[in-house]
Every structure is written in structure tokens, then in C-alpha cells.
């Protein structure tokens, strides 16, 4: 049997490549009022959006950096391009794409992916969505799936009604930053009673050095509808730090269900600072499946505001932190109505000096009677250099509820490792097997092609440093 450590020595980070840059517009480095204005002008946005951006910029300047969570002191806001427009106009067939962009996508595997499953692909290259193919079926049933800029142009009434309503700019510093300079992201609208059977997917990519990506996603699921949205991220390796500060707002109306799956694999120099929030109305179901493997620092706490009676919220999350990484991730559940329920399952793994922190909030408001909360966080620490934290907050202002929280932290079972190695399995393979078993309850909720990718990534990360 081949020694797995050997094959890992020449392991090339699969997505760690970068293409020559060819842009039609690149804003100057750093951020001021003029940059914000010029972004809005280039996009020919309505006045309300321009005002929204400028107001958000003012809030961004005023807001302090978060005083808790991961270390963000290395971020230099003046050393970032806030807007880059890669090609003149959007193209809707594969053949029309510029060569470099096509090569980048070929290496991520977009065309194959498209052939295999797609209901729709929206791929983001730099800050503008340049490639988008929308399945005819989607249009037929009235589903809108486009990039956010197009959404604003074509459906201004819907966008104005929902945009920034769930995550206002003053929510936090990075939401304010995104609100000021957002570009790209997805806009999804599912009409009443429509159930979209295939998941919608978007690929995101950062390709310019020192360039932060500020995508903005808005999903609206009308009464009784269903949608599954998948966000997968890969990014090339660069030497300087990049910021990814996204905002995702989801409105789940009565009896509707939305599932949002993320497989985050940014390269290890990206600050991934994302605000994700969903509002669930009467008997609505919101599910976040959140896998954080990459990035230097991630701060992300997908939340569900349970506003309607009988609404359900769920967050399933996996965090993996290797050398130099800090995954500060978790979930927030806010119960405002009776008979609401929430469930948080978090699995984190730290290795090679990595640090994982679960940070979560559960709040039950007065009147949210017969609500139930279940939180479970498990952590594996694989070596002496690594660290794991758990910071759950539970605020209960109602007595007719049940709230449960449990957490465990442990190392990988020596007996299990011994058993597997005694059967001729190498130690690194055995560790990979056990770690994949540990995260299995979450992985099984992810579509097959992603769970295979995730298992493969974990195996690679695991066998990379066998002592």
C-alpha cells in the first residue's frame, strides 16, 4: 500500500492558481465616498440604492470593529479594491466567456457540474456575475434566479421591499461595509406554491489580489414554496489577505421551506466575515447547512428569526481549522412566536495549531410558549497545538419552554485508531475515517456531489501532517 504521506508532499492546492487579470474597470484601492458613488454610477442604480450605499458607508465608518471573536487586527481596509468589473456585459452561453475565465471555471469544474445536475448555474468571477445559465424550467414556473445587480434592475419593486430589511446596515460593521460596496450575489424569488426540485447553485470566486468580495444574496420564498440553494466557494491562494464580507437575507413565508447549503473552502488568507439571516413566518422551515473548511478567519453565525407560530429553524454546521486558521462559527436562533422549535448541531475539528470556536445564541422571547430548543456541539482536537472553544449564550424569558444544550470536547479515540491500524489501515487513513464518521450526521444532509468533495477534502487535510 502506498504511504499516504508521500502522495501528500507533492499535493498542489487544487484551486490555488490564478489567471492573468483583464478588467474593464477597477476602482482605486481603499474606500471613500467617491468609490461608493462610482460603484453606484457604473451600475446605473436607482437613487434609493445610491443613498442606501452612501448611508451604509457612513455607518461603516462609525461602527467599531467587533471587540469579541477572532483576531481581525491584520485587516487593512485601505489596501483593498472594492469594485472590479471583469467584462463589459454578462454572457449567457459558455462559449462567449473570455478564455481566462473559462480556464478558471474548467479547473473548478463548472461545465461538468452543469452537465450533471443543474437547475441553474450562476458563477461569480470577481465582483460581477459574468456567467449565468438559467434553466428554462425555472422560468416556466415563475422562479427568478439571477445575480443581485440584474435583480435590482429588472425587479426593483421586489428588491426594494426586502433588501436590507432583515440585515440593516447598522447591524454590524461588515454588514455596513457590504451594504456600501456590495456587488453580485444571487437574487432568488420563488412564487407561491412552487416547489423547486433541483437545487440552485452558485460558484463564487475571488481572483484579484487584495480584492475583497462583497456579494449580496436575497432569497424570497413565497407561501408554500420550497427551494434549496447551494453556495460553494473556492479561491486561489494569494500572499496578501483578502476579505469576503457577504450578506445573505432570506424570507421564508408561511408554510414555505428554504434550505441553504454552504461549502466554504476559501484559501487560507481570506477573512470570511459573513452575515446570514433568515426570517421564518407561520409554519415555515429554514435550514442552514454550513461547512467551513477554508479561510484564514471565519466569523459567521447563520441565524433564524422565528416570527411565525410553528416555525422551525435548523443549523447544521461543520468547521475544520488547520494551521493558522480560526473558525469562529455557530448559529443564532431567536424565538418570537409560540410553538417554534430550533435545532443546532455543530461539529468542529481542530488540527495543526488550528482553532475552532462555536459561538451561538438562543433567545426565547416572552410569549413564545411551548417552544423548544436543542443545541449540540461536539469538538475534536487532534493534537497538542490545537484549540477548541464553545461559547453558547441562552437567554430565556418564557417559562413554558424546553431548552437543552450539550457540548463535548475530546480527542480522537485511541482504541478506535488502534483497532483500525491493527486491521492494516494506515494511521492517517484511520484518522480520516474517524473524522469523517464524526461529521457524518451533518454531511449526510449535503447533496452527494458536495459530500464526496467534503469527505475528500477532510481526507486530504487529515493525511497532510501525520506525525
Amino acid at each position, binding site marked *: 500500500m502506498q504511504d499516504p504521506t508521500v502522495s501528500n508532499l507533492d499535493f498542489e492546492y487544487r484551486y490555488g492558481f490564478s489567471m492573468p487579470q483583464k478588467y474593464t474597470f477597477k476602482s482605486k484601492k481603499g474606500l471613500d465616498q467617491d468609490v461608493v458613488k462610482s460603484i453606484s454610477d457604473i451600475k446605473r442604480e436607482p437613487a434609493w440604492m445610491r443613498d442606501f450605499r452612501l448611508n451604509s458607508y457612513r455607518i461603516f465608518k462609525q461602527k467599531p470593529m467587533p471587540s469579541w471573536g477572532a483576531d481581525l487586527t491584520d485587516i487593512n481596509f485601505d489596501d483593498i479594491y472594492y469594485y472590479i468589473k471583469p467584462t463589459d456585459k454578462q454572457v449567457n452561453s459558455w462559449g462567449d466567456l473570455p478564455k481566462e475565465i473559462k480556464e478558471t471555471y474548467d479547473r473548478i469544474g463548472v461545465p461538468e457540474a452543469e452537465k450533471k445536475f443543474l437547475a441553474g448555474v450562476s458563477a461569480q468571477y470577481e465582483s460581477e456575475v459574468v456567467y449565468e445559465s438559467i434553466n428554462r424550467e425555472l422560468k416556466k414556473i415563475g422562479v427568478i434566479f439571477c445575480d443581485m445587480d440584474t435583480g435590482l434592475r429588472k425587479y426593483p419593486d421586489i428588491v426594494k421591499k426586502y433588501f436590507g430589511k432583515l440585515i440593516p446596515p447598522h447591524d454590524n460593521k461588515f454588514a455596513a461595509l457590504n451594504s456600501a460596496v456590495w456587488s453580485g450575489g444571487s437574487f432568488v424569488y420563488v412564487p407561491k406554491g412552487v416547489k423547486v426540485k433541483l437545487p440552485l447553485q452558485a460558484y463564487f470566486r475571488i481572483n484579484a489580489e487584495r480584492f475583497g468580495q462583497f456579494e449580496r444574496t436575497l432569497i424570497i420564498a413565497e407561501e408554500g414554496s420550497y427551494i434549496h440553494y447551494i453556495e460553494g466557494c473556492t479561491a486561489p491562494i494569494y500572499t496578501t489577505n483578502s476579505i469576503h464580507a457577504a450578506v445573505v437575507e432570506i424570507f421564508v413565508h408561511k408554510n414555505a421551506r428554504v434550505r441553504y447549503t454552504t461549502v466554504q473552502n476559501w484559501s487560507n488568507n481570506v477573512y470570511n466575515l459573513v452575515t446570514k439571516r433568515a426570517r421564518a413566518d407561520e409554519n415555515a422551515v429554514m435550514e442552514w447547512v454550513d461547512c467551513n473548511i477554508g479561510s484564514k478567519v471565519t466569523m459567521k453565525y447563520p441565524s433564524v428569526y422565528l416570527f411565525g407560530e410553528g416555525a422551525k429553524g435548523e443549523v447544521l454546521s461543520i468547521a475544520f481549522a488547520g494551521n493558522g486558521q480560526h473558525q469562529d462559527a455557530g448559529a443564532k436562533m431567536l424565538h418570537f412566536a409560540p410553538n417554534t422549535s430550533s435545532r443546532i448541531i455543530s461539529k468542529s475539528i481542530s488540527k495543526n495549531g488550528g482553532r475552532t470556536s462555536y459561538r451561538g445564541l438562543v433567545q426565547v422571547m416572552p410569549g413564545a410558549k411551548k417552544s423548544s430548543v436543542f443545541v449540540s456541539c461536539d469538538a475534536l482536537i487532534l493534537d497538542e497545538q*490545537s484549540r477548541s472553544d464553545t461559547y453558547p449564550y441562552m437567554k430565556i424569558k418564557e417559562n413554558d419552554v424546553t431548552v437543552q444544550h*450539550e457540548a463535548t*470536547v475530546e480527542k480522537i479515540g485511541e482504541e478506535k485508531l488502534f483497532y483500525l491500524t491493527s486491521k492494516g489501515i494506515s494511521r492517517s487513513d484511520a484518522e480520516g475515517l474517524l473524522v469523517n464518521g464524526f461529521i457524518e450526521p451533518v454531511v449526510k444532509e449535503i447533496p452527494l456531489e458536495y459530500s464526496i468533495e467534503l469527505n475528500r477534502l477532510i481526507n486530504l487535510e487529515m493525511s497532510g501532517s501525520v506525525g
Partner: protein
Amino acid sequence: MKHVTFLNINEEKREKFIFNKSGKYIVFFHNLSGKFFFDLKAKGIDLDIYGLFVGRNKNQFKVETIQRHIAPESTSNLLIKGVFYDESKFIYQGLIRIEKEAQKSHAYQKNQNIIMSDKCFIDSRPFLEILANDVFCTHGSTTGKLNQNKIYYLQTRMLDKSAAEKLLIDGFIREITAKIGEYGHKIS
């Protein structure tokens, strides 16, 4: 019987407890607000920490506990139980911190609260910070009202509602008094 050092914080009137010698220790406190440090600085310490809270009227408790394992191969086990009536408030923050050197530590933390009124407020934050890998740590927290099925059962046995509630709450609290009693100590 094994020698046990018993510390009642209500009588000790201090917040810092440093354990430098191996052995069995039991710490107890009742309806006390404050920030309590428990530093485990030697191998072979077996520390139980019991906190009991009964909140009535406008009682407010703000409690912070820090179980800090500095030496390897010790165990700490914290259990805080609370019953809250009327407009009482309970804010609890518990931290287990395992330093790098404290391999083979076992640390547990449990907070269970019963809410008896819809006007009380519970804020529970059981934190873990684990810097060593060969450890076993768990924490759990539950908050809710009394089990209605059990009350119903007792009512069918001719107990009135308040007697049934009292019986269940006595049982809930007894877990702590019984454990301390096992070592020959009594609390009122």
C-alpha cells in the same frame, strides 16, 4: 471513609480557590452572586462544585464560575441547579479552561434550571476553552418548566398541584444535598 475537604463558600466568603494538593474536594454555595475562580494546580485533584439557587420575588443572581485546569490529570465536576419563581433573574456564565499543560484533564459542567413563573429571566452561558487535546470535557444546560406529566400523575394520586410541585422540586434539589451527604456533610 476517604478524606474530603469541604468548602462552603457562603461561610468562606472568598471568591478565589486554589487547589495545590491532590485529594477530594467539595465546594458548595447557595444563592450567592459573584465571580468564583477554581484553579487546579496539582495532579490528582478530584473537585466537585455544587451551586444551588432558589429565586423568589425580585431576586437577582449573577454568577460566574471559572474551572481552570493548570496541572494535568485532575478532574473537576460542576453542577448548578436553580429553581426560579416570580420575577427572579438568573445570569450564569461558566467557563472551563484547560491550559496546554493540563493533559488528561476531565472537566464537566452542568446547569439545570426550572422556571416556575413566566416573568423570570434566565441567561445561561456555559463556555469551554480547551487548549490541550488529550482531555474529556462536556457541558450541558437545560432550562424548562416542571414536567407536566409528572404533575398530572401526582394529582391522580390525590396530591394537589402545589404539593405535587413541591415534591418534584424537592427531588430536583435533593441531587445536590444527597451528593454532599454521601461524604458525611450536611447543608441546611
